[in-house]
């Protein structure tokens, strides 16, 4: 078998493996229905935006931006790769691990894994989202479906670029002189953005038809980023090879935290979760990055919508509502390393595990949202009253989304969001809960003052819903 045939076989088997992984978790039909749900959701959103005057080209550009953000998020595989992918999937072993036992080059295997991921996301996510976006605009009266192939191609390219950026950054993060290497990456990215904006008509993202030089530069940059990411991708080494005196001693971080939290079972469980996040690759910075990517994507959408809504915004309220969405990535990192089955050796109930996750969530999510919220306060001239209102909205939105995430996804937020039924339920709950707050951020200045109070009351109510959903989730597991 030639090396190229071997590579293609590996790629095909990885695609089969990915399908079986998800269809085994959710059932083939439910997984296959996922793109249909995406098509419907993006179609509805696109139709709504098109009817308020957003042109199809802008919607397409927004989708490209979202795909880029999505790629950034997906590239965080670079961080978890270092801690072994088995952490993500419990007892499941992926073909990716075959490099340890078979004569397969690690770089080729990772390349196949990335290509498979790009193909999967391109077909299952980006294709239905491109069709939905342009179909929605077409339904609203602006024929745009003809540019679907071009938009799909560009979203796939943007997704790959985002994936390449995070993968390269996480690969450069390992080893010494990381600041120098990351500074180098920053310079390259700045040059890339400068080069791209020269060829773009709407900065920083282009609209169809795309110019050839733009596509060429972006493709070249993406290939370079992916090569850097693959070149330095680190697998976890087998434990035996690392059992040496060179490993760094870690002293009493757990004990200090356990004591500060008051000792006992709950404090022990919280401290373990916090240290799992802190000591796994990427540390607590992965929370900041995930939330930042999500906020960036939300910011792009809000900016596009804001262009077509002529009212003055209330950034604090808008930002508070959008920050609520960061509860999802934070919770998913908290559940990345362990599973309830890991605790079956001890006298620990599932309810206690959920409570510990909630405690760790408060400890880790609070500084992340606080930094972003204060950053927003610094860069805008929000009044104290607006900041207080936005703060209330932020707390309500975060608590709501945390509770709903636990309720819908249990301990597997990443895996279960590929379940069509759960994804639909989650999207609907998120829409019902957060959309009124986002809308309030746009329209409050035009409304009487009493609506500010109502916004706060609504935030308190959805916060209560979040707590109730959390309680229900824990009761369900103990029933």
């Amino acid at each position: 078998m030639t090396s190229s045939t071997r590579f293609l076989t590996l790629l095909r088997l990885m695609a089969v493996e990915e399908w079986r992984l998800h269809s085994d978790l959710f059932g083939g039909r439910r997984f296959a229905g996922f793109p249909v749900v995406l098509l419907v959701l993006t179609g509805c959103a696109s139709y709504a935006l098109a009817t308020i005057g957003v042109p199809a080209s802008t919607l397409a550009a927004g989708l490209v931006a979202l795909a880029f953000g999505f790629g950034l998020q997906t590239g965080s595989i670079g961080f978890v790769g270092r801690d072994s992918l088995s952490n993500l999937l419990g007892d499941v072993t992926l073909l990716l691990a075959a490099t340890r036992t078979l004569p397969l080059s690690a770089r080729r295997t990772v390349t196949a894994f990335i290509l498979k991921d790009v193909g999967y996301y391109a077909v299952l996510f980006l294709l239905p989202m491109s069709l939905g976006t342009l179909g929605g605009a077409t339904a609203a009266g602006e024929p745009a479906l003809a540019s679907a192939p071009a938009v799909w191609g560009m979203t796939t390219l943007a997704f790959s670029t985002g994936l390449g950026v995070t993968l390269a950054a996480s690969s450069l993060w390992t080893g010494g002189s990381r600041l120098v290497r990351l500074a180098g990456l920053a310079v390259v990215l700045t040059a890339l953005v400068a080069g791209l904006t020269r060829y773009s008509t709407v900065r920083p993202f282009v609209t169809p038809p795309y110019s050839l030089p733009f596509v060429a530069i972006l493709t070249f940059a993406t290939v370079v980023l992916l090569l850097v990411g693959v070149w330095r991708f680190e697998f976890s080494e087998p434990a035996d090879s690392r059992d040496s005196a060179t490993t760094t001693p870690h002293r009493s971080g757990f004990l200090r935290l356990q004591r500060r939290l008051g000792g006992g079972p709950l404090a022990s469980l919280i401290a373990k979760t916090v240290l799992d996040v802190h000591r796994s690759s990427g540390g607590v910075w992965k929370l900041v990055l995930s939330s930042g990517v999500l906020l960036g994507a939300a910011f792009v959408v809000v900016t596009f919508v804001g262009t077509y809504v002529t009212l003055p915004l209330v950034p604090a309220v808008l930002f508070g509502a959008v920050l609520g969405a960061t509860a999802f990535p934070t919770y998913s990192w908290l559940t990345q390393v362990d599973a309830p089955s890991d605790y079956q050796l001890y006298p620990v109930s599932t309810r206690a595990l959920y409570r510990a996750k909630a405690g760790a969530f408060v400890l880790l999510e609070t500084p992340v949202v606080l930094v972003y919220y204060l950053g927003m306060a610094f860069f805008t001239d929000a009044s104290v009253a607006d900041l207080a209102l936005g703060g209330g909205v932020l707390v309500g939105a975060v608590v709501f989304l945390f509770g709903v995430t636990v309720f819908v996804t249990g301990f597997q937020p990443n895996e279960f969001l590929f379940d069509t039924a759960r994804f639909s339920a989650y999207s609907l709950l998120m829409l019902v809960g957060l959309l009124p707050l986002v809308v309030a951020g746009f329209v409050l200045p035009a409304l009487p003052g009493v609506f500010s109070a109502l916004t706060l009351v609504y935030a308190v109510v959805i916060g209560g819903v979040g707590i109730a959903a959390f309680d229900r989730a824990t009761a369900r597991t103990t029933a």
Partner: protein
Amino acid sequence: MAAITVDGLSKSYDTTPVLSNLTFEVDVGTVFGLLGKNGAGKTTTINVLTGIVPPDTGSAAILGLDPSDDPEGVRERIGVLPEKESPPSFLTPREYFSFVGGVRELDTEYVATRVDEWAERLDFAEKLDTLCKDLSRGQQQKVMLTQAFLHDPELVFIDEPLANLDPVIQERVKELIREFQSRGTTIVLSTHHVEVAQELCTHVGILVDGAFAVECDPRELSDETLRDVFLRAVEDHSTPLYPEP
């Protein structure tokens, strides 16, 4: 007096029966060996008795508690060393034992003293502050063994306790098992190492098709070894790979 009473336990996964009307008792202060071929139901038996999975039918009492009704109550009083489990990757052994002490509500000083004793005897004192993910399989096994006995439980389930350990440490673990037994601790030992079972156990049960085909005291075997008994028990029930024409 029985530490474990199992009556008519059955368990199937989908349509595959794993345990079939399993009935036995384990007396306090004995070392009970659970033997059987791969897939015979040893791990399922332990999982049912520790409350991890419920049985389909039948009942079990562990130190007087029903593991299906009160799994946490059972786990509070027992220790478990599963075959596949590793200590948490991102804690050091010392931190992990503090975690175990925390969830078991043990005194901090008591935990520190016990950890020092075990680390000394199993020879991993210099690894106490290394992240568990950076330990070898053998070192991880020592950590898991320690957690199972940390709270001085009345009953311990240990699945392949000697796996990945060097011969010196294997002997020390055997000594520890004998010590605990002499102090009245009941130990259920699941293993494929028939010689180890013969050496340590006061009673063994050989699982075939979800029930004990043979129950015996290996110390009373005179004409044959436990390995002979085991092979005869499982071969009586096996299909030959190349049947004679």
